[in-house]
């Protein structure tokens, strides 16, 4: 970004900042944990005990979540539904102030994943400026 000359009007400088801020929200995300099995070939993993059963196409289920009162209970409820579906990768994407995963969600997901044998990936991204 070029330095704005001192003779620019306040209005044009504000506009420049607005344009920049709208574009600057992307790319600030982190992958905090990835407990999912890596698949190979054409995205199919073996169904348990399935010598004759055809391998299943992987389902990627993406859940966006943010800090609210019922965040953890809602994730718990959904995880128990998803744990009943085979060949599923659950991608939990948190929207946070700083783009980092929150410890409470991290702990919660670790427990859920272990109990339910569900492949979970936990990511975090910075909330868009307008929503912070």
């Amino acid at each position, binding site marked *: 970004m070029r330095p704005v000359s001192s003779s620019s009007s306040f209005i044009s400088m504000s506009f420049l900042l607005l344009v920049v801020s709208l574009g600057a929200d992307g790319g600030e995300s982190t992958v905090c944990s990835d407990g999912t099995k890596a698949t*190979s070939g054409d995205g199919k993993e073996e169904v348990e005990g399935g010598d004759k059963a055809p391998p299943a196409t992987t*389902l990627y*289920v993406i*859940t966006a979540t943010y800090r609210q009162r019922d965040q953890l209970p809602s994730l718990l409820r959904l995880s128990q539904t*998803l744990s009943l*579906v085979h060949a599923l990768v659950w991608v939990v994407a948190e*929207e946070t102030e700083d783009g980092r995963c929150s410890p409470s969600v991290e702990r919660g997901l670790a427990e859920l994943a272990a109990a339910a044998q569900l492949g979970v990936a936990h990511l975090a991204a910075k909330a868009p400026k307008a929503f912070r």
Partner: protein
Amino acid sequence: MNARNAALDFVSARVEASNSGGVVYFADADNVYDLRLFEEIRGSTRGVSAFPVGLIGRLGVSSPVVVSADGDGDGGAAAVEGFTDPWFHFRKFPLDMAGFAFSARLLAETGARMQTKVGAEEDLFLQVIEREAPHKKGKPYHP
């Protein structure tokens, strides 16, 4: 919708790294999902699939209107002809976030992502996908 885009980055990277495919679906934690939906999505989605979402608006459902190619509603090759979402609002694809699924490979190939335009996230996303996937295949709607 940076969280969803971060997730799409993750899935695209996974698909490209392992040269594999898959089907992607957005499932928010405040919805209810019948287990059968997942197998139906897994089995039927080729490019983009679209299906009804209940408890939305006055009609009680946001759904694609599906017409089968041979007109007899028996599940033969079908196309999405329209939508019943209560809030069209100039959207090309008035679908609920939970009302569509798409191929992970198509996602990686098109690089489609969500844009932060409140109310139109699904629409703009699907417009990018549609450029690469001219046919949208939906299951026939069985009341």
